[in-house]
Structures are given as structure tokens and as C-alpha cells.
């Protein structure tokens, strides 16, 4: 039952709170920003589909008071593509993590961006695979010790904002959970804009990445505040390195025809059924 008068009873399934995420996990902050953005933009919540993949971030869809679906690992974007094509009046929003979207889901991500599918993607980047116990992932900084890189991570991380922009996304932003108002504003922009909109949110994984690297939750939040630098730069220059700096901001915001819009032209090219 919804507690009466709960401030987020419109946009969240408040009867399912408190959520399952760990103490200090940034996902709660992301969820809050999303809830506020949904309410403040005034979008019809019956026409939003919140879709998530597997991982801690993937649990977000279960707390949102819209139609919501929890897909298999890495497959939120093709699922969202099927939704958006079948019901162009529905806005798909994908909330997922760095591993789900860029490792197993990486191929679907770049193609969805290439097609300019109309979807808002909120990627919670916590630098590891949190749910399964903090193994390294495609964004883990080099040399980090994790359970599957016990001698240090010998791989190099992606720059997610640069990658998605190169693939063709029409909106690319990066914030951290220490910038909740800017995050909310970017989400509002993504909700009301047509095209492939991508928001990377740097979030602390307190029991995983943080604990393994001897960073307390507060250490990580202070680090995000200190290393986060808001700059207007091209996405390729938007460095994301927790040891040096994490460049934040709205890097790309352009307009291009969406996949659905171009598909409509096929109907005319093909000739409509008599």
C-alpha cells in the first residue's frame, strides 16, 4: 500500500521502499533524480517504459511507477527498440550499469546509438560488476585489484561518453551522484528530447569497488566532488579517470532524425497497403 502523502508516490512504487541497495550506494541518488525528473517534466507516466538489464542498476526498474521490464543481461536496448518501434507514443528509458550496457550489451549499445533509436539511457558507472562481487569490468581503472584481477587489472577502461558519442548518440552527458541537480536536469532534457540520449552517472559502489580499494563511502563521495570538473569539451576530451579528473557536463546535444522517423519514410517509399 502506498503510504499516504509520500513525496514520490506518483513516480515511484513507494510500497517497495526501502530499496535493496547497499549503504551509501549511488543508485538511490540516481533513482531519486529520475523520480524528480519524471514528475517535474510532467510527462505522462502511462507513456514511459522503464527498462533495465541485469546488475544492481538493473533493479531500478522495479522501483519506478511506470510500465517496467527487467530483461536479460545486456539486452535492455534491443528490447527497448522493439517497444519504441511498436509504440512510438511510448518513451523507453533504459537504466542499467556499465557492465550490462558496455560489456555484454556493448554491441547493442553502439548499434542503438548508430540507429538513433529514441531512448534515454541512464548508465550508472561504478567501475565494476557490483552485483556479482566487484569483479573488474569495461570501466575499471587499470591496475585495480578485484576478485578476477587479483594481481591488478591488466586491461584499459573505456571512456563511455566518448564511445557513445562516436557511435552516433545525439545527447551525451556525464555527471556524478554528487551533482544531483545537474543530473536531474539532464534526465529532464533526455526525457523530452527525441533521439538516443545517454547520461553517464559516476556512482560509488561502497561494498564492492570501494571496500576493495579501501575507500569508505564518504571517501568516494568526496573524491567525486573533488575530481569532478564541469567542462564544455568534445566527448573525446572528456577524461574519466578517478585518479586524475572526471570531466563532467553536457558534451553533445544535437538533433537528428530518429529511427522511427526515418522508418516512416519507408512506408511512403514502399507504397501504403490498399
Amino acid at each position, binding site marked *: 500500500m502506498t503510504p499516504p502523502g509520500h513525496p514520490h508516490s506518483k513516480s515511484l512504487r513507494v510500497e517497495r521502499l526501502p530499496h535493496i541497495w547497499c549503504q551509501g550506494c549511488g543508485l538511490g541518488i540516481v533513482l531519486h533524480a529520475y523520480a524528480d525528473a519524471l514528475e517535474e517534466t510532467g510527462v505522462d507516466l502511462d507513456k514511459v517504459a522503464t*527498462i533495465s538489464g541485469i546488475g544492481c542498476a538493473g533493479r531500478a526498474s522495479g522501483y519506478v511507477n511506470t*510500465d517496467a521490464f*527487467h530483461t*536479460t543481461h545486456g539486452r535492455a536496448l534491443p528490447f527497448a527498440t522493439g*517497444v519504441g518501434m*511498436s509504440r512510438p507514443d511510448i518513451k523507453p528509458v533504459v537504466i542499467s550499469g556499465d557492465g550490462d550496457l558496455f560489456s555484454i550489451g556493448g554491441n547493442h549499445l553502439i548499434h542503438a546509438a548508430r540507429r538513433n533509436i529514441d531512448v534515454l539511457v541512464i548508465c550508472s558507472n561504478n567501475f565494476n560488476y557490483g552485483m556479482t562481487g566487484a569483479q573488474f569490468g569495461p570501466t575499471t581503472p587499470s591496475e585495480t585489484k578485484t576478485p578476477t584481477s587479483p594481481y591488478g587489472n591488466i586491461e584499459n577502461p573505456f571512456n563511455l561518453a566518448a564511445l557513445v558519442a562516436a557511435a552516433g548518440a545525439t545527447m551525451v552527458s556525464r555527471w556524478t551522484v554528487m551533482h544531483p541537480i545537474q543530473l536531474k536536469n539532464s534526465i529532464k532534457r533526455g526525457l523530452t528530447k527525441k533521439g538516443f540520449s545517454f547520461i553517464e552517472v559516476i556512482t560509488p559502489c561502497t561494498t564492492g569497488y570501494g571496500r576493495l580499494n579501501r575507500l569508505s563511502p564518504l571517501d568516494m563521495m568526496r573524491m567525486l566532488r573533488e575530481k569532478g570538473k564541469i567542462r564544455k569539451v568534445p566527448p573525446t576530451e572528456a577524461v574519466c579517470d578517478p585518479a586524475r579528473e572526471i570531466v563532467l557536463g553536457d558534451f553533445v546535444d544535437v538533433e537528428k532524425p530518429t529511427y522511427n522517423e526515418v522508418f516512416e519514410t519507408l512506408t511512403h517509399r514502399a507504397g501504403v497497403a490498399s
Partner: protein
Amino acid sequence: MSEVLTGKSFVHGDWACAEGAIAAGCRFYAAYPITPATEIAERLAQRLPRVGGKFIQFEDEIGAIASVIGASYSGQKAMTATSGPGISLMLENIGLAVMTEAPCVIVNVMRGGPSTGQPTGGAQGDVMQCRWGTHGDTEIIALAPQSVQEMFDLTIHAFNLSERYRTPVFLMADANIGHLYETLQIPEAKGIEVVNRKRPTEKPGEYQPFSAGPDMVPPMACFGDGYRFYATGLTHNEKGYPDMSVEAQDRLVRRLCDKIRRNADEIERVEEHYTDDCDVLVVAYGITARSALSAVKRAREEGIRAGLLRLVTLWPFPDGRIEALAKGIRGAVVAEMNYGQLVREVERAAMRRVEFLPKLGENPHMPEEILAAIRRASK
């Protein structure tokens, strides 16, 4: 161009399947090219934009099946077609379709395997895969067309079954049928029975997305209907929320399986020839059944009381019918274009050994081979 192409034409099986989908009301197709199913995609790439439908070619088969589930949950009748290697890729999401009860049709135009195998050679080597390929306890429905006409008719039937039971349905064609040219008769649209999924009658707030009545099939709300439902591949309760309790797992898995098992009598479809008094039972499906029928007829001319049970549904497997037919026979013959798959089910249901005729490498059985086995079995 009309939606249902009523009339007579001379076409191949893949084309007929595509037209069957359109006639059934399919308006979403996700493609990935693969021999010998590509022609289904190519036909639908032409047709769907003309009938107000959507077509998309994905980066891989996994994207294709994921989008089919998304489209299904958006209220669309959705389909994808592939061959063995593509099904292997799709299996995880097929499990998601079973778990979230998403109606959809998956066509497998079977070719020689395993692995890349013989892309242009027909086979029947995936009939166990479609049943057991996805992990966990699942039940699926699989149909086996034996002609171009059935590629059309059974595609419509596949959609109807998927909508009625909220389950993925496989259409298991061998490549021989997929690329065979035959006469196809497409009836008037009004003569085609089309089944649509049950919709909820409750108001939003009262509706529980996975709560079912005696038929074990929950009414299905779709995105944008105002129900604000939640669906997940995790074990869930009737509200759709994840539930990791022992009771929830037991209840859900039983209902998902029993939904098919307890309705098997309505779902199973076989075609029988000369089985009323047969001493030798032949069991076959797909193109093999055509050779088998020829062999059975010739055996009858020689005075051997042979009969053919053609499986139209491969799954659920018609245990009861085989058990009944197996009483009092002298022998049985099973012919498949593989190295021994459904024969195991026949032996299990018949509770006896049978003579098995394998066939590997693109050519169907010749009637003579099956006839020779019938003669052996009749002694």
C-alpha cells in the same frame, strides 16, 4: 498491396511462412540473415512497411529476439526466423519469453549441424534443442510443417497458440521445406481464424500481471495501456515483483509448465494414416513424413498393415496417442533427418524399442528405405 494475398501461387516455403505471418496479424519482424531462413526476412522487409508494420534488421540474433519480446509486450504480434546457430544464440531470451509469458513466434528453418555445419543442407537436428535448449524447467510448443501450404497454415496456427497460451511457439521447418516450391492456396482473410491474447478486465491498481485463473494463462496488459505493470525474468509473484522464496519458485515454475502440460490435449496435433489396424507404426514429421506416407501406402499394397503417425506438433509430444497406438503392434519405425532425437520420445511413450532410420546430409529419406524397414518390422 493487400494484407492477405488471397489466391493461388507457386512459391517456396519461406515465402509462404512470411505471408502466413502477415495473415495472422504479425506487424513486427526482427531479422538477422541466415541461410536458409533469410528469404523470410527479405519477404517481410518488402511487405511490412506496406501493411503498416515494422521491420528491423538487428546486429545479431540476440538483439532480434530481445526486440521481439519488447514488441510483444507492446501489444504486437512479433516474429523472428533463423536457423540452428541463431536459435543457439537466442536461447537465453527464449527463456525470458517463457518466464515473462510473451507471445511470439520463432521460426527455425533447420540446416545441417552441429555448429556452422551445412548451411544449405536441410536437417531435423534441432528438435530437441527447441524443447530443452533454454535453461531451467520450461515447456514450449513446436510445430513441424511438411509442405509449403503448411508453412502458411501452421505459421498462423503458431501465432494463435502463442496468443492463447502466452508462450513462445517454434515453427520447425527443415530447409527442404523452406526452399521447396509448391502450390500455395491463401484463403480470404475472413476465412482465417485469428486468436488474440486475453486483455485484463480489472482496473489499474487491481490488476496482477501474473495472476491466472483455471486455464493458468494470465490476461496480458501491455506497455502504454495504463497498468504500470512490472515484469522480470527473475522468479516473481503474481504482482510481478521478484520473489526469492521457495514457495514462489515452486508455484511459478509449476504454473508455467502446467499451463502447457494440462492443456496438451488441445495443443497436440497429429495426422494419422491407416493407423486403425496397423501392425507396424511409422512415426515421422516434416518432409520425412512425405516419404513415410509413400512407404506406408506401398507396404499396404504388399499386404503389410502399416500405418503412419505424422507429428504436426513436436512439442508437447503426443505421449498418449503413441502409447495407445503402440499397444498390439509388431514393430515400429521412426525416420528422422538427424542421428536420433525424437525417436527417444517415441520409445519412451511406446515403452518399446523401435527401428530408427537416421539421415544425415541434406537429402530426405527415400520411400524405399522406409519401406525396407517396415518389412523388417512386420516380421
